[in-house]
């Protein structure tokens, strides 16, 4: 049942894979569209003003005022006329400024209007990944994942933002502007995805060495598929059956992996690194840095410091056969 669900999810993602980029100019939700509209209004007004000033400057340079030998001998009527024009331009500036402020405020009120969210998510920023907690009315329905946020299409989503170490900033440009995650402070951000798709985001506040590789992905699914996904994520990890994967699970539990990661349904329960319970169901690894594939997993497990220098995941020495087994185990965590 659930494998079929996963297949449908995969298909839906394939269809919408073209929308994977992060751009404020390609809005895919009402909030981002709203901001983009305001952006274009401002661009038009400001661009026009700039152009007008340049035209006046150009004419002023080309036209030649009458020759005067003494620079102090001013043409008094011309000065008076110019004063009127300058005065008019100042009044115009003031009116434009007031109009733009009012417009900005109107848009701002609408953007941050309260709305009952359909989904509540808590995102915690850490150096250099995102911990994602889905909250539910009953504790057994809640779960933790990392770096990927699944949301239902057309439903408002409220994300509560927290940080455990330094300041980060949550930003998925095609859905909404950004909001900082600040230690000791509760922030939140609200957005809605208009259509199914994958929307990439990235940490926008400098947070140290791997700020550049702190991506995240928002996956918007139609409501039934989202429900299927939720259900799948609530489950614990399935026991490995094949000998290779069993060996991998043993290595995972005996090497450093187990010190930081948790996999529900096993003894691994540490919260230092990302939760790996349904690791292989994700689109990417290492905070949206590498695409999910056997090769990427192997590369990451073998040499995280080469891929993200400074990351908190240490290089763990594994024999080639051990690496194979661990990768197989992780690959099976669907």
């Amino acid at each position, binding site marked *: 049942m659930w494998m079929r669900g996963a297949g449908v999810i995969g298909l839906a993602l394939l269809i919408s894979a073209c929308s994977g*980029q*992060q*751009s*404020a*100019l390609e809005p895919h939700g009402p909030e981002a569209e709203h*901001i983009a509209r*305001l*952006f274009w209004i401002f*661009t038009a007004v*400001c661009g026009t*003003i700039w152009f007008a*000033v340049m035209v006046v*400057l150009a004419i*002023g340079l080309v*036209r030649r005022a009458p*020759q005067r030998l*003494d*620079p*102090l001998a*001013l*043409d008094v009527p*011309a*000065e008076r006329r*110019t*004063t009127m024009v300058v005065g008019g331009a*100042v009044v115009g500036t*003031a009116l434009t*400024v007031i109009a*733009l*402020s009012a417009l*900005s405020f109107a*848009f*701002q*009120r609408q*953007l941050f209007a309260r709305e009952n969210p359909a989904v509540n998510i808590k995102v915690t920023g850490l*150096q250099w990944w995102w911990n994602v907690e889905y909250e539910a009315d009953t504790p057994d329905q809640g779960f933790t994942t990392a770096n990927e946020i699944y949301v239902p299409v057309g439903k408002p989503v409220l994300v509560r933002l927290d940080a455990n*170490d330094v*300041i980060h*900033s949550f*930003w998925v440009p095609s859905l*909404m*502007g*950004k*909001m*900082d995650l600040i*230690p*000791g*402070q509760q*922030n939140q951000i609200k957005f809605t995805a208009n259509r199914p798709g994958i929307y990439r985001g*990235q940490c*926008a*506040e*400098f947070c*140290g*060495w791997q*700020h*550049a590789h702190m*991506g995240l992905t928002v996956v918007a699914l139609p409501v039934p598929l989202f429900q299927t996904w939720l259900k799948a994520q609530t489950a614990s990890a399935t026991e490995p059956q094949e000998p290779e994967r069993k060996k991998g699970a043993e290595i995972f539990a005996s090497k450093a992996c187990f010190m930081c990661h948790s996999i529900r349904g096993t003894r691994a329960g540490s919260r230092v690194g990302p939760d790996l319970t349904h690791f292989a169901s994700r689109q990417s690894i290492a905070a949206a840095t590498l695409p999910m594939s056997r090769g990427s997993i192997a590369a990451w497990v073998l040499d995280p410091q080469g891929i993200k*220098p*400074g990351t908190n995941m240490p290089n763990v020495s594994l024999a080639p056969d051990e690496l194979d087994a661990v990768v197989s185990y992780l690959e099976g965590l669907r």
Partner: protein
Amino acid sequence: MSTQAATHDLRDTHLDDAELHARLTRTWRTGPSLIARLSSVDHKVVGRRYILTAFFFLCLGGLSAVAMRLQLARPEAKLLGPDLYNQLFTMHGTTMMFLFAVPVMEAFAVYLVPLMLGTRNIAFPRLNAFSYWVYLSGGIFLWASFMLKVGPDVGWFAYTPLSGPDFSPGKRVDVWAQMITFTEVSALAVAVEIIVTTFKQRAPGMTLDRIPLFVWSMLVTSFLIIFAMPAVMVASTMLILDRLVGTHFFNPAEGGDALLWQHLFWFFGHPEVYIIFIPATGMVSSIIVTFSRRPAFGYLALVLSIIAVGFLSFGLWVHHMFVTGLPQLGNAFFTASSMLIAIPNGIQIFCWLAALWNGRPVFKTPLLFVLGFFFIFIIGGMSGVMVASVPIDTQVHDTYFVVAHFHYVLIGGAVFPLLGAVYYWFPKITGRILSERMGQWNFWLAFIGFNVAFFPMHILGLQGMPRRVYTYLPEMGWGSLNMLATVGALILFISFLLLLINVIGSASRGVPAGDNPWDAGTLEWATTSPPQPYNFSRIPFVTHHEPLWDNRESLPVITGLSVESREIVSGTLTEAYPEIRESSPEPSLWPLLAALAVGGTFLGSIFTPWAVVWGSIPVAITLIAWFWPKGTPEDEK
């Protein structure tokens, strides 16, 4: 006895020009020996050192920018790792803001303000020398740390908790925080000197409405420095205390507040932008007046606009914090106040346009740079209006859009006028004119290179590229615009090389300038190029805000100053009515020694708090020696 008294109180009234020149030179000159040079308190000597040092740091800041652009030209480039890249962008920002932009504006003021006001030296000349040595040691300290691989790596803004003891162990951030203190001290010193010089040492007749616009701009800037800098001084001291003695000002786990840092930093940081920009408006005014061949249009409006900008600049800081989760209504207030500052800035631009419109512009290099300033700075102003809007800012904040915006503001608004000012005042400082041909090349390369480098960044930011990333993934699609930006940056870099070649070549082989090569109207052009150590053989009497245009044949002067000791005229604040002859301090080595003592104290304090205690002893000794009474009955004359 009577001849003795006469020589002792020899006045300029008694002497002919040649004799006067000889005697004044003996009184005011900086001797040729090394000790004499290090002891110099001549504002022109110190100002020249300041300018050269600031441009040297511009080179270093520019080189770090080029390194960053090379790294970003391609996705996932391996030229620089995150460690070096983070140090480089921190060094770039810190150097450009603290070691180049603010000091270079002050440097021009130190050199020009006394000349423009018709006095013989800046107020508190020893403090002036001291401020230069402190600035120099701060800059060396920062760059030496970088060379020793302990360069700060948390950005020029050093947000806590990233810059706190938990996430930035080691000495890197301490270096940054103490470098702030160095530049702090020197900037405050210069601000005090400029204010006092402007208020008390203006040539007789220079009433408030005859002060040159550049001096007005520096006066307002100095007040901004005095009110803004203490905020960052408090912030950096609290940071040092958190790091060094375990206080918890910024540690939320112990009841501190991580966001407090941002309030303090930006309460300084936003006026800082205007500390850089307002002097540039003074340069623009000077150049436009001279090259449009007419007095400023709307002198009073320009002065009042500068003052208004100065005031308003303190009410904008929250627009750097729109996405930190502050109350929305509060944010909206800062949208309005940020947009409001467009009005006084608009007034200035309209007045300049009016002057060009009604004048007969002469298209020499200084004016070209001012025209480039209009083109670029107004784009920056417009994108500034955009980022002032909270909804738009939530998207573009901390992206390359903002990088583009503030480079348009700072390079367009400050560096282009500054380059214009270099071409404009170089003849006064060196006595030779910079090559006009190379100047034109320099301008066009800088103009094209700048726009090619920075305009694409607007688009990159909107396409989702955050700031301060050392690399990006190939699939993000940012590669080609980044490559374009790098090409532009290299063109811009070449234009600066051209300036360097022009400066070196023209300093020795340029066309001799004469006193007033541009036929300008302000007092600095009344004296020789380069000016004599005493600036003016007789103190001019000012009848107009463009005195040299008002008195074509010869300036009226006042006489009666001593030629045997360093004397200046001190006057009333508003009318510049001469009140007393005031003596100006003699050269002294103590400012240098005091600066070394202060520098040593700051340096030691990043290792142990006790350095502040023990360091105060040499500081006290040098200061006592510096202020030791000389026993000359100067005030009895």
